[in-house]
Structure formats: structure tokens, C-alpha cells
């Protein structure tokens, strides 16, 4: 690394990254059904013993997969999400009153996170009008049509899985593991990325970078997925 590369580098360690994640942290995560959840950071949070987390993200994964592992271990107090159906442990905790779950329709949740990341206060949508989703929400008529005001979401820390990161934190993702990752990456005060490959500045074609490095605070190497996928366990049934 030359002097400029050193000055711009965000490459860090798991230990350093975990300093930002503590009891009660408002933590956004990328991933969808476990795919794109950052495995090394999830493992690190488990090992550190962090509890009472307030999570924001698409779903609670599966009991032994991805972010679902934090739920199963009882480390989560509250979550804003769209789906917990694939993780029965989350459902049980919710019914026992141990886990506070706030549901948002999936596209609305994604857009609330994007709004937070884009520096907006919220947005208007007609999704969920006439259902439970509208309860407690302000209705606004715009251009003659009725909408719900959906508020923006931000977090203290975001944890991201990327395929490739350069040392400045420019990111590319891999196939369907992109999902919520680029949205979450923009919406937190501190964004921590674990990448399958960390490459020198200038390696990534600026045309294909999905998340510009300005959004990223720390880049750590990924140890790779350390769980069995739900479909691997279900094989043969």
C-alpha cells in the first residue's frame, strides 16, 4: 500500500468491529432467508455475548442459519422485520413476550431503510391500505389518491455481507445475496462489511460498484458461511 492507499483504507479486524456492537445496539443487517447475512460478524456477536439487540432487517432466517442464530440464542429483544415464518423460535419467543416484533410489508421495509439511507424522512405508499398495516399511520392525499406515510429507518450499526470490497469500502455483491445489503449499508451511523475477498484500490471497475465506499466504515475478511443451509438439512424429505 502506498501512502494514499493507507490513508483511505478501512480494512480492520473482527475484534475492532465488535467494539461497535454492544448490549442494546440498534443493528441493521443485510440478507434474505439467511442468504447475504454476514456469517463471521454473526458468530462474533454470539461469541462476545452481546444481548438485548434491536434488529432491523428482512427476516429472522432459520433457527440455525444466519441472523436466526442470534434470535435462537436469545440475544434479540426487538426486531422490525417482514417475516419470521421460517424461524419458529422467533415465533415462540414472540408469543412468550420475550421478543417484540414489529412487522412491515417487505417492500415497504426495504424502502423505509432506503429512505433512511438517502437522508429522507419517509415516503408515501398505498400498500396495506384497508388492512392492519394502516393502523396508527398518518394518511396523506397526494394527487387525488390516498397514501400511508411510512417513516424512514436508520440504525446505529449495519452489518453487511459483500462479495468483493476494495480497501476504501467500494462493494460488489454476489447474485441473490445482494437483496437488502446495499440498502442497509447506507442507513447506519457505522457500517461494517465482511467481504469474501478484499482487493487493492483500483481493482474493482467503478462501473460495477454497487455500494460506494463513502458509506462503509470498516471492512473485515469473511470466514465464509459456517452453517448448513435449510435446504441442505431438508434434503431427502
Amino acid at each position, binding site marked *: 500500500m502506498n501512502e494514499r492507499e493507507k490513508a483511505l483504507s478501512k480494512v480492520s479486524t473482527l475484534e475492532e468491529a465488535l467494539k461497535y456492537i454492544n448490549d442494546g445496539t440498534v443493528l441493521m443487517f443485510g440478507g*434474505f*432467508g*439467511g*442468504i*447475504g447475512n454476514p456469517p463471521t460478524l454473526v458468530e462474533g456477536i454470539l461469541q462476545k455475548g452481546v444481548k438485548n439487540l434491536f434488529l432491523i432487517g*428482512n*427476516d429472522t432466517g*432459520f433457527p440455525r442459519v444466519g441472523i436466526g442464530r442470534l434470535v435462537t440464542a436469545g440475544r434479540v429483544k426487538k426486531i422490525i*422485520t*417482514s*417475516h*419470521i*415464518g*421460517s424461524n419458529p423460535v422467533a*415465533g415462540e419467543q*414472540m408469543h412468550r413476550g420475550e421478543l417484540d*416484533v414489529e*412487522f412491515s*410489508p*417487505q*417492500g*415497504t421495509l*426495504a*424502502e423505509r431503510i*432506503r429512505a433512511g439511507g438517502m437522508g429522507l424522512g419517509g415516503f408515501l*405508499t*398505498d*400498500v*396495506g391500505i*384497508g*388492512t*392492519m*398495516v394502516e393502523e396508527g399511520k398518518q394518511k396523506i392525499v397526494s394527487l387525488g389518491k390516498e397514501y400511508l406515510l411510512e417513516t424512514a429507518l436508520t440504525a446505529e450499526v449495519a452489518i453487511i455481507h459483500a462479495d468483493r470490497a476494495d480497501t476504501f469500502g467500494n462493494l460488489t*455483491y*454476489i*447474485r*441473490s*445475496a*445482494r*437483496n*437488502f*445489503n*446495499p*440498502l442497509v449499508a447506507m442507513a447506519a451511523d457505522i457500517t461494517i462489511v465482511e467481504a469474501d475477498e478484499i482487493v487493492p484500490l483500483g481493482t474493482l471497475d467503478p462501473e460495477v460498484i*454497487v455500494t460506494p465506499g463513502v458509506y462503509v466504515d470498516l471492512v473485515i475478511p469473511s470466514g465464509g*458461511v459456517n452453517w448448513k*443451509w*435449510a*435446504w441442505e438439512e431438508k*434434503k431427502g424429505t
Partner: protein
Amino acid sequence: MGLGREKRHLVASRAARELKTGMIVNLGIGIPTLVADYVPPDIHVVFQAENGILGYGPTPREGEEDPFLCNAGGLPVTLSKEASYFDSTVAFGMIRRGLLDLTILGALQVSEEGDLANWIVPGKRVPGMGGAIELAQKARRVIVATEHLARDGRPKILRACTFPLTTRKSVQLIITDMAVIQVTEQGLVLQEVAKEYEPGDVVQATEARLIIPPHVERF
């Protein structure tokens, strides 16, 4: 799931017959997911997934699964040549903008008017709505593919839903292991009955009123 493998696949293969060339199609979790494996060889559709794929194909052969290429239910899929990847806001932008020709969704309850309930069993189970509200509210055509009866044996097709709604008046066709039922202005019309049942069996397993035309097809 309450149904055996065979019946789930029967529902999926019947639902696949609703696909038409050129359609952009989203499949929900459960039985609908299986539809991607039953696309007739002469039909060319483009499957969309909420996690950010436009253009996926059937389940890969065992041993060829890619953990980073999965549908919204977290199950491995294959990629079609026209495919693109994007984040979930773009996936839902397409849905809200009305670009989906068809969605096939699971159901806890469906009403005579085409109301859909599929995200809360009050007091028991709250899986969450996932993307079902956007899909049911915005896709041009909404088909429900489900078991005819709930796990506890109660009818799912009702005069009015008792569970909290996903959407009102959005379902156009109901495909189950017993029947194919069309939602019309006049009410529910029994179009087809599965080979092993008679129309009377369907009536008995359905709380909603069914209009039975003189000729009912078999599937």
C-alpha cells in the same frame, strides 16, 4: 404442511397450467414455489423474486445448488439467460409499478369476494406478511395455490375471512388439491374437480357458497 408430497405437487402442476408465454411471474413460499418445476416446455415465462432476481429457472440438480442463488423462500434455483440482479427496493418497485402479470400465493383463508388472509393465525402463529401484501395488491392476476383444508381440518375457503386480511378483493383463481375455483362477480364458480373427488366433496369441504355449472372439468 398438512398435505403429502404428491398432493402439493398436484396443486403446483395444475397452477403451472395458468402460465402463459411472456408473463412476468412471482411465486410465493410453499406450494407456489414448486410451480417453477412444472413449467410446460412450450411456455416461456420470466420468474421474479423479491430478493432481487428477474429471470430464474427450476430447481438445480442435486449437487449443483448455489447457496448464493436462491428464491425468496431461501431455496436454490437456477438462472435464466435473460436474468438480472438488483436490490429488494427495485424488486418491489417492479411489483408496485404493476409490472407483474401474475403472482401465485399461498393462503390461510380466502373469501367469496377474493379477500386473502395469509400472514396471521390469531393467537397461534404470526409468520409475517413478507411481500404478500405488495404482490396480492399489485400483480395483475392473483392465483392462490393451497391445501383445500387447513391443518386442523377446517375449511380455508370461507364466506368471509376471520383472520386479518392481506388484501381485499384481489384473488381471481383458487387452486387446491380438490378443486379449481374462479372468483367472479356472482360468487365462487367451481371450474374443475380433482379426479378422486366429486363436486359434492368440494361443497362439503368449502364453507363459502359454490356455484356449480352444468359441466365441471376434471384435473
